[in-house]
């Protein structure tokens, strides 16, 4: 393709004929690409990953992760056939690892839609390098999350009547006044909308793969999945409108999902759960943990799939800034919870929070605070925000810290009941640990399959923001 030079630079920001500035705002910004990739380079890099043979490392890793996922499935079957008594939760801790893991995975699923919807509405062009993988991660995380509420019902084959308003022989309906039911609708809507959003983004890229494919099996698969996309501008016109509408409705959706998850706790009357700060606190925490996981996976994918041209240090730095902003919000919420516990004058509320920080679970509490509040403060330094290895290590701390946050909220509020005679202490069983490990295995297996067989970068979206890719209106 003809190289497009500076005079054709994309300048949405320029007013008509605004040539008085020495540099356009675009030129003052750090470029989003390393070097100057052409349209062809985008096609080649991304299709190359799909069309190439998997490496030995890929086979070795997926054997390990799918083995872990298999072990998780076996322990789920063991749970279902034996009963949930094989888990460590018991009175007074009726919710433990199951709901902790559910909230943990749902939280991770929040980065994808934030990147694809909210950053799209804010015209954040850097999102195109990471949105595809983050959306995939969202879908896989929600799959992992959905496992827990379904199996914690004990008899999952009956759960459909407990969770959905289906006519049945008892002529009874689900309780629409319960936050647990709101959650069913929120999470399943979130899953469905994320999946559709992801697929719509993939259709043009499947068409690119279809046009290149020669393999007897690959060609019909890409043809089918691309739905016959031809790239006609009359189609793009409706496509862009659809994308905008999806982004518009996904923005309140992503904020609603963790809000409703937090209602599971906040609408109850339990000290430590019954607080009005929960919805924004949970949403900030979800975005925080989601970006943590995006960084964990994308730093590795960037290296292993040679995506350095498209995922630059600027992208990593931007994500670290989001991580830090949401981390500070989470830290603020931790603080304000203590203030309100003191200010409320409610002795039970005060007890729960003092017990949380200095009681039997204080080790978990301080792990959480260290991972989520103290360690991310390193991102105040630009050098650290742009350092891939340190960022990766911090992202692991964030993942760990956010799991502990949910565990702390659930276990510490439950383990010391109003009646001291029923106090207890939760210890997970090997089944608890195995099922959680199994979902990690499942998540990584799905991500590995995605990274190998589906375009990891949004080909058409990246092409649209390359320098010189758009017509230069000021020359008309």
């Amino acid at each position, binding site marked *: 393709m003809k190289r497009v030079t500076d005079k*054709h630079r994309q300048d949405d920001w320029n007013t008509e004929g605004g040539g008085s500035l020495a540099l356009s705002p675009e030129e003052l910004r750090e470029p989003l690409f390393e070097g100057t990739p052409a349209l062809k380079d985008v096609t080649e890099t991304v299709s190359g990953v799909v069309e190439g043979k998997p490496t030995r490392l890929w086979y070795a890793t997926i054997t390990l992760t799918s083995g872990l996922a298999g072990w998780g499935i076996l322990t789920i079957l063991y749970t279902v056939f034996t009963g949930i008594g094989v888990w460590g939760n018991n009175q007074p801790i009726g919710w433990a690892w199951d709901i902790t893991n559910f909230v943990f995975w749902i939280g991770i699923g929040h980065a994808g839609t934030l990147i694809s919807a909210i950053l799209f509405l804010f015209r954040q062009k850097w999102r195109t390098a990471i949105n595809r993988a983050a959306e995939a991660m969202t879908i896989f995380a929600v799959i992992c999350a959905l496992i827990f509420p379904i199996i914690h019902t004990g008899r999952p084959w009956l759960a459909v009547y407990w969770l959905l308003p289906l006519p049945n022989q008892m*002529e009874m309906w689900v*309780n629409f006044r319960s936050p647990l039911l709101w959650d069913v*609708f*929120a999470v399943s809507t979130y899953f469905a909308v994320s999946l559709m959003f992801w697929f719509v983004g993939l259709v043009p890229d499947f068409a690119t793969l279809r046009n290149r494919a020669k393999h007897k099996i690959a060609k019909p698969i890409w043809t089918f999945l691309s739905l016959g*996309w031809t790239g006609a*501008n009359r189609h*793009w016109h409706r496509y862009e409108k659809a994308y905008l509408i999806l982004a518009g409705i996904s923005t309140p959706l992503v904020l609603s999902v963790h809000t409703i998850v937090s209602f599971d706790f906040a609408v109850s009357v339990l000290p430590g759960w019954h607080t009005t700060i929960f919805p924004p606190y949970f949403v900030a925490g979800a975005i925080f943990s989601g970006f943590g996981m995006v960084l964990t996976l994308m730093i590795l994918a960037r290296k292993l799939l040679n995506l350095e041209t498209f995922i630059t240090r600027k992208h990593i730095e931007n994500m670290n800034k989001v991580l830090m902003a949401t981390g500070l919000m989470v830290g603020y919420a931790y603080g304000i919870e203590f203030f309100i516990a003191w200010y409320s004058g409610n002795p039970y509320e005060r007890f729960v929070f003092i017990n949380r920080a200095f009681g039997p679970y204080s080790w978990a509490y301080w792990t959480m605070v260290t991972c989520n509040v103290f360690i991310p403060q390193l991102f105040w330094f630009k050098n650290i925000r742009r350092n891939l290895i340190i960022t990766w290590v911090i992202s692991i701390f964030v993942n760990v810290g956010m799991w502990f946050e949910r565990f702390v909220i659930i276990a510490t509020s439950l383990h010391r009941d109003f009646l001291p005679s029923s106090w207890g202490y939760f210890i997970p069983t090997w089944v608890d640990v195995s099922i959680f490990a199994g979902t990690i295995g499942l998540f990584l297996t799905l991500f590995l399959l995605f990274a190998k067989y589906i375009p990891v970068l949004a080909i058409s979206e990246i092409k649209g923001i390359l320098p010189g890719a758009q017509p230069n209106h000021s020359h008309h």
Partner: protein
Amino acid sequence: MKKTAGVSGLFHDPDQVLKAATGIRDAGFRKFDFHTPYPLHGLDQAMGIRRTILPWISLGAGLLGAGVALHLQWWTGAVDYPLVIGGKPFFAFEPSIPITFELTVLLTAIATVVGMFALNGLPRWFSKWQNDAHFTRSMDDAFVVTIDAEDPAYDGEKTASLLESLGAEQVRIVEYED
């Protein structure tokens, strides 16, 4: 039997695409299109594409979703099987908001995606242009213009030379097996 699909040509410069789009429209063509690897800003206006009705479909589905959700919660809880739970009213708007919101979003999203593909006439796994080499490049690195032979203003070689005068490269008449 071989049939003529129309003429097709290549562009590499996005600015030229916009000029060509205006030129083709001014020459009286309606059944033409540009196949591009990504949406080009301003091409809709240059081609004179009318705004899609898709947002109205989305809005209708969203309203339907809200209505269905409210009706479902009211009818099951207050009419079909009223059950006192925690002394709360059988139906109230406040606890009905989350599910109403979720179903509004769900139906809007489904209608938007299905509506977009349906308005585009997709899925359709056959295109008149698919065996042309230009077509392959349209999802890669070139902007491909096609003028349909069914357009009343279409006139074989004359249309081809119009495209050439507008800056298209490798202009040719494309045929397909019917």
